[in-house]
């Protein structure tokens, strides 16, 4: 019962916020809606019994990515753009107006439907397989998986993070004055 309610709330939060992300013109508001979406997804993770993933999601996104994005928006002025200058006889899409939105939505829908078509026989299956309705702690299992089966990916991701850290620091460093 709790799970169902949590699922309903999270889904509502996710979907309404995601509509906000797409619809709002203000990039700052978009970021805040993104925050809502991510929290909603974390809630969905929780309903799936993925406690560690859910908390990691909150930790990384709320504590890191969203703040980073807000900083970036602030440092770059925070304007969104509508441009009609590149209109090519009405044939090619001019990005940034309602036509684009519809076209993009259409394209995305087609893409998703393609995948749904591919996966349709899987989706018809119902009912959780893992753990049944029990939701035991996944932390220790995940720990074992990370340092046993997936140790290479684990190490590689640490290298990746280091690379991203150094790379971001170097790229964003202000230009030296000659």
């Amino acid at each position, binding site marked *: 019962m709790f799970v169902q309610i949590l699922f309903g709330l999270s889904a509502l939060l996710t979907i309404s916020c995601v509509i906000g992300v797409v619809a709002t013109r203000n990039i700052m508001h978009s970021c805040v809606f993104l925050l809502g979406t991510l929290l909603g997804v974390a809630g969905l993770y929780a309903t799936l019994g993925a406690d560690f993933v859910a908390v990691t999601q909150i930790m990384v996104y709320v504590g890191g990515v969203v703040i980073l994005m807000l900083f970036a928006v602030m440092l770059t002025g925070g304007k969104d753009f509508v441009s009609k200058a*590149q209109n*090519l006889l009405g044939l*090619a899409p001019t*990005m940034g107006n309602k036509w684009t939105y519809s076209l*993009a939505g259409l394209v995305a829908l087609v893409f998703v439907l*393609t*995948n749904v078509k591919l996966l349709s026989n899987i989706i018809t299956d119902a009912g959780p397989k893992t753990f049944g309705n029990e939701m035991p702690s996944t932390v220790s299992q995940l720990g074992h998986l990370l340092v046993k089966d997936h*140790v*290479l990916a684990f190490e590689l991701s640490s290298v990746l993070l280091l690379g991203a850290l150094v790379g971001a620091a170097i790229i964003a460093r202000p230009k030296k004055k000659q």
Partner: protein
Amino acid sequence: MEYSVGSIAPIFLAPVLAFVINAFFGRRLPRNGDWVAVLGVFISFIFSARIFGDFVFGKFATDYYIHKTFTWLDLSYMDQVWKFDLGIYIDNMAAIMLLMVSGVATLIHLFSTWYMDHDPRHGRFFTFLPLFTSAMLGLVLSDNLLALFMFWEVMGFCSYSLIGIYYEKEEAGDASIKAFMTTRVGDVFLLLGIVAIYMVIGSVTYTDIYAAIAEGKFAGQSVLGIGLATFTGFCLFLGAMGKSAQFPLHVWLPDAMMGPTPGSALIHAATMVAAGVYLSLRMYPLMVAGDLTAFIAIIGAITAFGAATIALVQTDIKAVLAFSTISQLGYMMIGVGVGSYNAAFMHLITHAVFKACLFLSAGSVIHSIHEQQMPKMGGLRKKLPYTFIAMFCCSLAIAGVPFFSGFVSKDRILGDALYWGFMAGQNPMLAIVPILGFAGAFLTAFYMFRMIFLTFFGTPRDQHIYDHAHQEHLSFTSNVPLLILTVFTLGFWYAGSLTGQGIVNVMGAKTEWFKILVEAPQVEKFVGSEAKKTPFIEPTTYTETLPVAVLDGQTGYAGPNPDEHKIHSAHVIGAVASIIIALTGIFLAFLMYVKGAIKPLAPKFPGYVRTLQNRYYFDKVYQDIVIKKGLLGLNRLLAWFDMGIYDRFAVDGWAKVNRVLFRIAKWFDNVVIDAVGVDGAGVAVNLFNLVLRIVQSGKIQFYFIMLIVVLCSYIWTLNF
């Protein structure tokens, strides 16, 4: 006898600890922490000495070895076993090698504290020196090729850092890069060989490889049409060639003297270059299985002779020593090639000792007079008496004068080579190996004494330098290490008899200890050697002490050889010949450079001398052909492809195509307009450009849509 890991690990870990301490806290310590380095290496010397004592003085059977492993990497998943073991493997050879490396390294560290004093790179030098030593010790301790390769690369890195330690000098930087890149050529092949071995037998542990050879796993398989044993052996030997500076990969070693002299002594004379020979000896059964021995012998002979000729005309004291190192390594390779297993190893040891001593002496000379060019020296015998004694004894050793270590080991190699080339019924062309060997021995004697006479005898050729040279006093750090090493250039330490020919017996029953202890691995013994592996942490319970009686027997020998008599006579001939050759060489040098009775021959062969001075143009050839023509050419080709083809046709091409189309349209406009119709042509051109522009809009998002559309249609077409 139980060896716990705790009694073996400090050999490797003490220098590593010294490295870590010096790397992080070196600057804060008094004297930049050089005493930490000395202490670390000395600890490993003590532990090595214990193992050496146990192995050599009869605690174990001659074929006893310690093999401890632990699982380093376990990526087993479900039922697929994929794990990798590391471990320690010590046999007689490794025990002797450990003592040599740590002992020589200790003395060199000690000497360096004097030599590098007040040097601006003091701290950096004493950071890399223990790391280097530890890598070499680790290489000797490791039980498999992959660990060997890792330490091999660490040594490569250390030598790079030590050669380029004065990185502000352009030559030093170039030399370090050259050393790194040249050895890299060999290393690539070494790695290839290791991978090939792993693919075949699923392990790179020495014992497993030996067992696999004995079981014939290598036979019948081939890579690229070459027999597998040949292929892997060749790859491993190429690695050894790079590290041991064999022709044609020798070019890096002479330049490596850009680093401080004690560094050269440790790296480019005593230990690192020996790693290649060590690898060849470890993998000797593979070389035999792959029929590579003749090839190895020929490479060795060419190196031995060629480097000796180049050394004749060098004027830099360190350059002479560098080329003599290459030449002596060539002798070791001859030894490997002609099957003179223990002599090659013995020469490795003796050479390490006397070459370290020679380099340290050269360092002492350079430090005293701040000059490296021999034409500016002369008469230093009085100023540097101890250095003179050390250098003179070592030169006698390297020249192969009886009662010195070089005679014992080199003559055994030459004797075996003589037998192998002339009497073993091989291809007569292979007689070139002993001939080049003896010729090289003659040249060795000559150029070493040329160096001695030019440096220490005669009158000072540059009075100013002579007057400013410091008078040498006996000191614990500056010349006691030299003298200690000098003591070990005497022959009886190694052979039991002073000459190696059994003339004078000194140590009784264990007279031929090298021959008894070091022999080519009998691969059959290693079949099923899994049982002898012991886990890493638990104290081993495996003991195998041998009854003393067996020690007196002939267990170490491979068995009665039907050609024993022939071999013996070859040895006698070789010994006599090389004594004569060595003395002639020394005498010739004496006549030329002390008495002046014979004018130096150089002016008579100006062309040849120039060739020698340019080191047979190897550097030039590499520079011009491999780098300029090959790599630069490749670069240029790529650049040309980038600029000429990609840029011109793909990028500018679009523009040109557009322009051409426009031109066509214009022509069409002008010519056909009246006849056909004005608007048609214009619209056609417009439309065409429109399509072009849509595809090439430069808009990321448009590309993204295209990507999705293409992906969707791809999936769609696949599934419907």
